[in-house]
Protein backbone atom coordinates (compact mmCIF):
# COMPACT_ATOMS: atom_id res chain seq x y z
CA UNK A 1 0.00 0.00 0.00
CA UNK A 2 2.88 2.30 0.58
CA UNK A 3 4.76 1.26 -2.54
CA UNK A 4 4.29 3.06 -5.78
CA UNK A 5 2.83 1.28 -8.70
CA UNK A 6 6.04 1.83 -10.59
CA UNK A 7 7.91 -0.30 -8.10
CA UNK A 8 5.25 -2.95 -8.22
CA UNK A 9 5.62 -3.28 -11.93
CA UNK A 10 9.28 -4.23 -11.62
CA UNK A 11 8.28 -7.07 -9.34
CA UNK A 12 5.54 -8.43 -11.52
CA UNK A 13 7.32 -11.69 -12.17
CA UNK A 14 7.35 -12.28 -8.41
CA UNK A 15 3.59 -12.64 -8.06
CA UNK A 16 2.61 -14.65 -4.98
CA UNK A 17 1.40 -17.58 -7.06
CA UNK A 18 4.66 -17.96 -8.95
CA UNK A 19 6.55 -17.52 -5.73
CA UNK A 20 4.84 -20.34 -3.84
CA UNK A 21 5.02 -22.67 -6.82
CA UNK A 22 8.75 -22.27 -7.08
CA UNK A 23 9.18 -22.67 -3.36
CA UNK A 24 7.68 -26.16 -3.45
CA UNK A 25 10.65 -27.54 -5.35
CA UNK A 26 13.32 -25.81 -3.33
CA UNK A 27 16.04 -27.72 -1.58
CA UNK A 28 16.81 -26.92 2.01
CA UNK A 29 20.00 -25.21 1.01
CA UNK A 30 18.14 -22.99 -1.43
CA UNK A 31 15.58 -22.15 1.21
CA UNK A 32 18.25 -21.04 3.59
CA UNK A 33 19.83 -18.94 0.89
CA UNK A 34 16.53 -17.25 0.03
CA UNK A 35 15.86 -16.64 3.70
CA UNK A 36 19.25 -14.97 3.99
CA UNK A 37 18.50 -13.00 0.84
CA UNK A 38 15.24 -11.65 2.21
CA UNK A 39 16.94 -10.60 5.43
CA UNK A 40 20.06 -9.29 3.75
CA UNK A 41 19.18 -5.58 3.96
CA UNK A 42 17.94 -5.94 7.52
CA UNK A 43 21.17 -7.59 8.59
CA UNK A 44 23.13 -4.77 6.98
CA UNK A 45 21.09 -2.15 8.80
CA UNK A 46 21.46 -4.02 12.07
CA UNK A 47 25.23 -4.18 11.60
CA UNK A 48 25.32 -0.44 10.92
CA UNK A 49 23.35 0.36 14.07
CA UNK A 50 25.47 -2.03 16.11
CA UNK A 51 28.61 -0.32 14.84
CA UNK A 52 27.22 3.10 15.81
CA UNK A 53 26.28 1.90 19.29
CA UNK A 54 29.64 0.17 19.76
CA UNK A 55 31.37 3.38 18.62
CA UNK A 56 29.37 5.31 21.17
CA UNK A 57 30.49 3.07 24.01
CA UNK A 58 34.12 3.16 22.89
CA UNK A 59 34.06 6.98 22.84
CA UNK A 60 32.22 7.03 26.15
CA UNK A 61 34.82 4.86 27.82
CA UNK A 62 37.54 7.26 26.68
CA UNK A 63 35.76 10.44 27.71
CA UNK A 64 34.23 9.70 31.09
CA UNK A 65 36.67 10.56 33.90
CA UNK A 66 37.89 7.65 35.97
CA UNK A 67 36.55 8.91 39.27
CA UNK A 68 33.05 9.39 37.89
CA UNK A 69 30.47 7.07 39.36
CA UNK A 70 28.05 6.32 42.16
CA UNK A 71 29.64 7.46 45.42
CA UNK A 72 27.17 5.85 47.80
CA UNK A 73 23.79 7.11 46.67
CA UNK A 74 22.74 7.15 43.04
CA UNK A 75 20.07 9.81 43.57
CA UNK A 76 22.29 12.37 45.20
CA UNK A 77 25.88 11.24 44.82
CA UNK A 78 26.46 10.21 41.21
CA UNK A 79 29.42 12.41 40.32
CA UNK A 80 33.11 12.80 39.64
CA UNK A 81 34.73 12.14 43.01
CA UNK A 82 37.77 14.26 42.15
CA UNK A 83 35.50 17.30 41.86
CA UNK A 84 35.01 17.52 45.65
CA UNK A 85 38.75 17.29 46.29
CA UNK A 86 39.48 19.91 43.64
CA UNK A 87 37.10 22.30 45.35
CA UNK A 88 38.53 21.52 48.77
CA UNK A 89 41.94 22.57 47.50
CA UNK A 90 40.86 26.11 46.65
CA UNK A 91 42.80 28.68 48.70
CA UNK A 92 40.99 30.35 51.59
CA UNK A 93 40.76 34.12 51.18
CA UNK A 94 39.71 35.13 54.69
CA UNK A 95 42.33 34.14 57.29
CA UNK A 96 40.79 34.97 60.68
CA UNK A 97 41.94 37.20 63.54
CA UNK A 98 44.42 34.72 64.97
CA UNK A 99 46.41 35.08 61.77
CA UNK A 100 46.44 38.89 62.06
CA UNK A 101 47.52 38.88 65.72
CA UNK A 102 50.86 37.41 64.74
CA UNK A 103 51.97 40.80 63.41
CA UNK A 104 49.42 43.20 64.85
CA UNK A 105 49.44 42.18 68.51
CA UNK A 106 48.68 45.64 70.04
CA UNK A 107 45.49 46.12 68.04
CA UNK A 108 44.45 42.55 68.64
CA UNK A 109 44.81 42.78 72.40
CA UNK A 110 43.12 46.18 72.49
CA UNK A 111 40.16 44.75 70.63
CA UNK A 112 39.76 41.88 73.05
CA UNK A 113 38.98 44.16 75.94
CA UNK A 114 36.10 46.10 74.49
CA UNK A 115 32.71 46.29 72.73
CA UNK A 116 34.17 45.03 69.45
CA UNK A 117 35.72 42.04 71.16
CA UNK A 118 33.58 39.55 69.27
CA UNK A 119 34.50 40.99 65.90
CA UNK A 120 36.88 39.53 63.39
CA UNK A 121 39.53 41.85 61.95
CA UNK A 122 38.31 41.07 58.43
CA UNK A 123 34.76 42.17 59.23
CA UNK A 124 35.82 45.80 59.00
CA UNK A 125 39.19 45.51 57.24
CA UNK A 126 37.98 43.32 54.41
CA UNK A 127 39.50 40.06 53.25
CA UNK A 128 43.12 39.28 53.93
CA UNK A 129 43.91 37.99 50.48
CA UNK A 130 45.68 40.93 48.82
CA UNK A 131 47.57 41.75 51.98
CA UNK A 132 48.84 38.23 52.19
CA UNK A 133 50.16 37.93 48.66
CA UNK A 134 53.35 39.79 49.67
CA UNK A 135 51.95 42.90 48.05
CA UNK A 136 51.68 44.47 51.50
CA UNK A 137 48.52 46.05 50.18
CA UNK A 138 47.12 48.03 53.06
CA UNK A 139 43.94 46.84 54.67
CA UNK A 140 43.09 50.17 56.24
CA UNK A 141 39.41 50.99 56.63
CA UNK A 142 38.41 54.45 55.54
CA UNK A 143 37.72 56.42 58.70
CA UNK A 144 34.51 57.73 57.20
CA UNK A 145 31.24 57.93 59.08
CA UNK A 146 29.66 55.63 56.48
CA UNK A 147 32.00 52.79 57.39
CA UNK A 148 30.59 52.77 60.94
CA UNK A 149 27.04 53.56 59.88
CA UNK A 150 26.93 50.31 57.89
CA UNK A 151 26.28 48.64 61.25
CA UNK A 152 25.26 51.51 63.50
CA UNK A 153 22.78 53.58 61.46
CA UNK A 154 19.34 53.39 63.01
CA UNK A 155 17.08 51.04 61.04
CA UNK A 156 13.70 49.75 62.13
CA UNK A 157 14.71 46.29 60.97
CA UNK A 158 17.66 46.22 63.40
CA UNK A 159 17.19 44.66 66.81
CA UNK A 160 16.33 47.49 69.24
CA UNK A 161 19.09 46.59 71.73
CA UNK A 162 21.80 46.99 69.09
CA UNK A 163 23.61 50.38 69.43
CA UNK A 164 22.34 52.65 66.63
CA UNK A 165 22.37 56.38 65.90
CA UNK A 166 19.92 58.33 63.75
CA UNK A 167 22.63 60.42 62.14
CA UNK A 168 26.17 61.53 62.88
CA UNK A 169 25.24 65.16 63.56
CA UNK A 170 22.33 64.18 65.83
CA UNK A 171 24.64 61.85 67.75
CA UNK A 172 27.25 64.59 68.21
CA UNK A 173 24.57 66.99 69.45
CA UNK A 174 23.20 64.33 71.80
CA UNK A 175 26.66 63.92 73.33
CA UNK A 176 26.82 67.69 73.91
CA UNK A 177 29.80 68.05 71.60
CA UNK A 178 30.36 70.66 68.91
CA UNK A 179 30.34 69.39 65.34
CA UNK A 180 33.69 70.46 63.89
CA UNK A 181 34.74 70.14 60.25
CA UNK A 182 36.63 66.93 59.56
CA UNK A 183 35.12 65.23 62.55
CA UNK A 184 34.22 61.53 62.17
CA UNK A 185 33.32 58.66 64.47
CA UNK A 186 36.98 57.86 65.10
CA UNK A 187 37.58 61.37 66.45
CA UNK A 188 36.02 60.19 69.71
CA UNK A 189 35.92 56.37 69.36
CA UNK A 190 38.92 54.13 68.80
CA UNK A 191 37.47 51.55 66.38
CA UNK A 192 39.46 48.78 68.09
CA UNK A 193 38.04 49.78 71.48
CA UNK A 194 35.06 52.03 70.80
CA UNK A 195 33.43 52.23 74.24
Amino acid at each position, binding site marked *: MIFDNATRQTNQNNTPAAYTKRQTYRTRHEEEASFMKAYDHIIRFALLITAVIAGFFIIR*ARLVPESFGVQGSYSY*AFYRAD*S*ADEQAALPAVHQGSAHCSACHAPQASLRQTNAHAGL*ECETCHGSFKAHNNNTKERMAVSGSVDACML*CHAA*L*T*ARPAQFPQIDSFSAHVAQQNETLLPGMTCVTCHDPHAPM
Partner: protein
Amino acid sequence: MKHDRREFIKKAGWTFIGSGLYINLFSAGPALAGSRSSALKNLYAFIVNTETCIGCGKCAAACRAENSVPDGNYRTWIERYTIMHSGSVEVDSPHGGEKGFTPLSFNPADIRKSFFVPKLCNHCKKPNCVQVCPVGATYVSPEGFVLVDEKRCVGCSYCMQACPYSARFMNPVTHTADKCTWCYHRIRQGKTTACVQVCPVGARLFGRVDDTDGPVAQLLKAKRLQVLKPETGNEPMVLYVGLDKEVH
Protein backbone atom coordinates in the same frame (compact mmCIF):
# COMPACT_ATOMS: atom_id res chain seq x y z
CA MET B 1 38.04 -0.37 30.89
CA LYS B 2 36.03 -3.15 29.31
CA HIS B 3 34.91 -4.27 32.71
CA ASP B 4 33.95 -0.70 33.57
CA ARG B 5 31.81 -0.43 30.51
CA ARG B 6 29.96 -3.60 31.28
CA GLU B 7 29.54 -2.47 34.83
CA PHE B 8 28.14 0.80 33.56
CA ILE B 9 25.63 -0.80 31.25
CA LYS B 10 24.53 -3.10 34.00
CA LYS B 11 24.33 -0.34 36.54
CA ALA B 12 22.65 2.13 34.22
CA GLY B 13 20.11 -0.44 33.17
CA TRP B 14 19.24 -1.46 36.67
CA THR B 15 19.19 2.05 37.99
CA PHE B 16 16.97 3.16 35.15
CA ILE B 17 14.46 0.54 36.13
CA GLY B 18 15.15 0.66 39.80
CA SER B 19 15.75 4.29 40.60
CA GLY B 20 12.47 5.54 39.25
CA LEU B 21 10.46 3.00 41.20
CA TYR B 22 12.46 2.20 44.26
CA ILE B 23 14.16 5.42 45.19
CA ASN B 24 11.27 7.72 44.48
CA LEU B 25 8.30 5.66 45.52
CA PHE B 26 9.37 3.30 48.26
CA SER B 27 11.86 5.49 50.06
CA ALA B 28 8.95 7.78 50.92
CA GLY B 29 7.77 5.10 53.35
CA PRO B 30 10.41 5.34 56.07
CA ALA B 31 10.44 9.14 55.72
CA LEU B 32 6.75 9.23 56.50
CA ALA B 33 7.29 6.90 59.43
CA GLY B 34 9.54 9.52 60.93
CA SER B 35 13.02 8.11 60.51
CA ARG B 36 15.04 10.67 58.56
CA SER B 37 16.24 8.07 56.16
CA SER B 38 18.78 9.15 53.65
CA ALA B 39 21.67 7.35 52.12
CA LEU B 40 23.82 10.36 52.93
CA LYS B 41 25.06 11.69 56.19
CA ASN B 42 24.20 15.31 56.67
CA LEU B 43 26.85 16.13 59.21
CA TYR B 44 26.51 19.89 59.09
CA ALA B 45 23.81 22.47 59.62
CA PHE B 46 23.68 26.21 59.19
CA ILE B 47 21.65 28.33 61.59
CA VAL B 48 20.53 31.84 60.73
CA ASN B 49 19.23 34.02 63.54
CA THR B 50 16.91 36.64 62.10
CA GLU B 51 16.46 38.14 65.55
CA THR B 52 20.07 39.30 65.80
CA CYS B 53 20.90 40.12 62.16
CA ILE B 54 21.63 43.84 61.74
CA GLY B 55 21.68 43.88 57.95
CA CYS B 56 25.22 45.22 57.60
CA GLY B 57 25.83 43.10 54.50
CA LYS B 58 29.33 42.07 55.59
CA CYS B 59 28.49 38.41 54.94
CA ALA B 60 27.49 38.99 51.33
CA ALA B 61 30.58 41.12 50.69
CA ALA B 62 32.86 38.54 52.31
CA CYS B 63 31.24 35.78 50.24
CA ARG B 64 31.92 37.69 47.03
CA ALA B 65 35.59 38.15 48.00
CA GLU B 66 36.05 34.59 49.23
CA ASN B 67 34.47 32.89 46.23
CA SER B 68 35.09 35.40 43.43
CA VAL B 69 31.36 35.70 42.83
CA PRO B 70 30.77 37.75 39.65
CA ASP B 71 28.93 41.06 40.03
CA GLY B 72 25.18 40.86 39.75
CA ASN B 73 25.06 37.28 41.06
CA TYR B 74 24.62 36.22 44.64
CA ARG B 75 25.62 33.16 46.59
CA THR B 76 24.17 34.80 49.68
CA TRP B 77 22.04 37.87 50.18
CA ILE B 78 20.04 39.67 52.85
CA GLU B 79 16.37 40.60 52.57
CA ARG B 80 14.63 43.24 54.63
CA TYR B 81 10.99 42.63 55.49
CA THR B 82 8.82 45.54 56.62
CA ILE B 83 5.34 44.53 57.70
CA MET B 84 2.77 47.30 58.08
CA HIS B 85 -0.13 47.49 60.48
CA SER B 86 -2.33 47.30 57.40
CA GLY B 87 -0.90 43.85 56.76
CA SER B 88 0.95 44.83 53.60
CA VAL B 89 4.50 43.58 53.28
CA GLU B 90 7.43 45.43 51.76
CA VAL B 91 10.57 43.50 50.93
CA ASP B 92 13.81 44.93 49.60
CA SER B 93 17.33 43.74 49.03
CA PRO B 94 19.34 46.45 47.23
CA HIS B 95 22.50 44.85 45.76
CA GLY B 96 21.55 41.77 47.72
CA GLY B 97 22.09 43.84 50.86
CA GLU B 98 25.80 43.66 50.19
CA LYS B 99 26.28 47.39 50.63
CA GLY B 100 24.07 47.64 53.68
CA PHE B 101 20.60 49.12 53.96
CA THR B 102 19.37 52.71 54.13
CA PRO B 103 16.36 53.81 56.20
CA LEU B 104 12.98 53.40 54.49
CA SER B 105 10.67 56.35 53.98
CA PHE B 106 7.68 54.78 55.72
CA ASN B 107 6.09 56.51 58.67
CA PRO B 108 7.45 54.53 61.67
CA ALA B 109 3.97 54.61 63.19
CA ASP B 110 2.67 52.50 60.30
CA ILE B 111 5.25 49.77 60.74
CA ARG B 112 4.21 46.72 62.74
CA LYS B 113 7.60 45.04 62.59
CA SER B 114 10.69 44.87 60.48
CA PHE B 115 13.58 42.42 60.29
CA PHE B 116 16.39 41.08 58.13
CA VAL B 117 16.55 37.59 56.64
CA PRO B 118 19.87 36.39 55.26
CA LYS B 119 19.54 33.77 52.53
CA LEU B 120 21.92 31.21 51.09
CA CYS B 121 21.87 27.77 49.57
CA ASN B 122 19.96 25.46 51.90
CA HIS B 123 22.14 22.41 51.19
CA CYS B 124 19.02 20.29 51.34
CA LYS B 125 19.01 16.67 52.37
CA LYS B 126 16.93 15.83 49.31
CA PRO B 127 18.02 18.55 46.95
CA ASN B 128 15.73 19.04 43.98
CA CYS B 129 18.60 20.59 42.02
CA VAL B 130 20.66 17.40 42.32
CA GLN B 131 17.65 15.32 41.39
CA VAL B 132 17.18 17.17 38.10
CA CYS B 133 20.82 17.49 37.00
CA PRO B 134 20.94 15.32 33.87
CA VAL B 135 24.69 14.74 33.85
CA GLY B 136 25.66 14.25 37.49
CA ALA B 137 27.40 17.62 37.64
CA THR B 138 25.81 18.61 40.92
CA TYR B 139 25.86 16.29 43.88
CA VAL B 140 25.82 15.90 47.62
CA SER B 141 29.36 15.52 48.95
CA PRO B 142 30.15 12.86 51.58
CA GLU B 143 29.83 15.59 54.22
CA GLY B 144 26.39 16.66 52.99
CA PHE B 145 27.40 19.74 51.00
CA VAL B 146 25.58 20.33 47.73
CA LEU B 147 28.31 21.12 45.19
CA VAL B 148 28.67 21.78 41.47
CA ASP B 149 31.32 20.16 39.29
CA GLU B 150 32.11 22.98 36.92
CA LYS B 151 34.04 20.63 34.67
CA ARG B 152 31.01 18.42 33.98
CA CYS B 153 28.19 20.98 34.05
CA VAL B 154 26.69 21.50 30.59
CA GLY B 155 24.98 24.76 31.57
CA CYS B 156 21.39 23.72 30.88
CA SER B 157 19.97 25.77 33.79
CA TYR B 158 17.61 23.00 34.81
CA CYS B 159 18.89 23.13 38.41
CA MET B 160 18.20 26.86 38.56
CA GLN B 161 14.61 26.22 37.54
CA ALA B 162 14.33 23.43 40.10
CA CYS B 163 15.73 25.28 43.12
CA PRO B 164 12.76 26.74 45.03
CA TYR B 165 15.04 29.28 46.74
CA SER B 166 16.75 30.77 43.67
CA ALA B 167 20.06 30.05 45.36
CA ARG B 168 21.64 29.19 42.01
CA PHE B 169 22.78 31.35 39.15
CA MET B 170 24.51 30.96 35.82
CA ASN B 171 28.11 32.01 36.31
CA PRO B 172 28.85 34.43 33.44
CA VAL B 173 32.56 33.54 33.55
CA THR B 174 32.47 29.74 33.60
CA HIS B 175 29.01 29.40 31.95
CA THR B 176 28.13 26.76 34.49
CA ALA B 177 25.73 26.63 37.41
CA ASP B 178 27.09 28.31 40.52
CA LYS B 179 25.93 28.54 44.11
CA CYS B 180 26.93 28.74 47.75
CA THR B 181 29.21 25.85 48.72
CA TRP B 182 29.04 26.53 52.46
CA CYS B 183 32.69 27.42 51.81
CA TYR B 184 33.46 23.75 51.27
CA HIS B 185 37.17 24.51 50.79
CA ARG B 186 37.36 26.38 54.11
CA ILE B 187 35.53 23.65 55.99
CA ARG B 188 37.82 20.99 54.60
CA GLN B 189 40.75 23.19 55.68
CA GLY B 190 39.43 23.36 59.23
CA LYS B 191 38.07 26.91 59.03
CA THR B 192 34.50 28.15 59.18
CA THR B 193 32.60 29.77 56.32
CA ALA B 194 33.54 33.32 55.29
CA CYS B 195 30.07 34.70 56.05
CA VAL B 196 29.99 33.12 59.51
CA GLN B 197 33.47 34.40 60.23
CA VAL B 198 32.77 38.05 59.42
CA CYS B 199 29.27 38.30 60.90
CA PRO B 200 29.67 40.89 63.70
CA VAL B 201 26.64 39.76 65.69
CA GLY B 202 26.80 35.98 65.35
CA ALA B 203 23.59 35.85 63.35
CA ARG B 204 25.08 33.05 61.27
CA LEU B 205 26.29 29.80 62.78
CA PHE B 206 27.73 26.78 61.08
CA GLY B 207 28.87 23.52 62.48
CA ARG B 208 28.51 19.82 62.92
CA VAL B 209 25.18 18.51 64.05
CA ASP B 210 26.78 15.65 65.99
CA ASP B 211 29.23 17.88 67.88
CA THR B 212 27.21 18.14 71.09
CA ASP B 213 29.36 20.92 72.55
CA GLY B 214 29.27 22.97 69.36
CA PRO B 215 27.11 26.07 68.98
CA VAL B 216 24.93 24.50 66.30
CA ALA B 217 24.05 21.43 68.29
CA GLN B 218 23.37 23.65 71.32
CA LEU B 219 20.98 25.87 69.37
CA LEU B 220 19.31 22.87 67.78
CA LYS B 221 18.47 21.81 71.32
CA ALA B 222 17.59 25.19 72.77
CA LYS B 223 15.58 26.85 70.00
CA ARG B 224 12.55 26.06 67.88
CA LEU B 225 13.73 26.31 64.33
CA GLN B 226 12.04 26.67 60.99
CA VAL B 227 13.14 26.11 57.41
CA LEU B 228 12.17 27.91 54.21
CA LYS B 229 9.48 26.36 52.01
CA PRO B 230 9.31 23.03 53.87
CA GLU B 231 6.43 21.98 51.59
CA THR B 232 8.86 21.30 48.74
CA GLY B 233 10.13 18.25 50.59
CA ASN B 234 13.75 19.16 49.94
CA GLU B 235 14.57 19.08 53.66
CA PRO B 236 16.77 22.17 53.90
CA MET B 237 19.73 22.15 56.24
CA VAL B 238 19.73 25.93 56.76
CA LEU B 239 17.58 26.49 59.84
CA TYR B 240 16.10 29.80 60.90
CA VAL B 241 15.47 31.35 64.28
CA GLY B 242 12.51 33.74 64.28
CA LEU B 243 11.31 33.10 60.76
CA ASP B 244 8.09 34.97 59.99
CA LYS B 245 5.24 33.54 57.94
CA GLU B 246 5.76 36.29 55.36
CA VAL B 247 9.18 34.95 54.43
CA HIS B 248 9.32 32.64 51.40
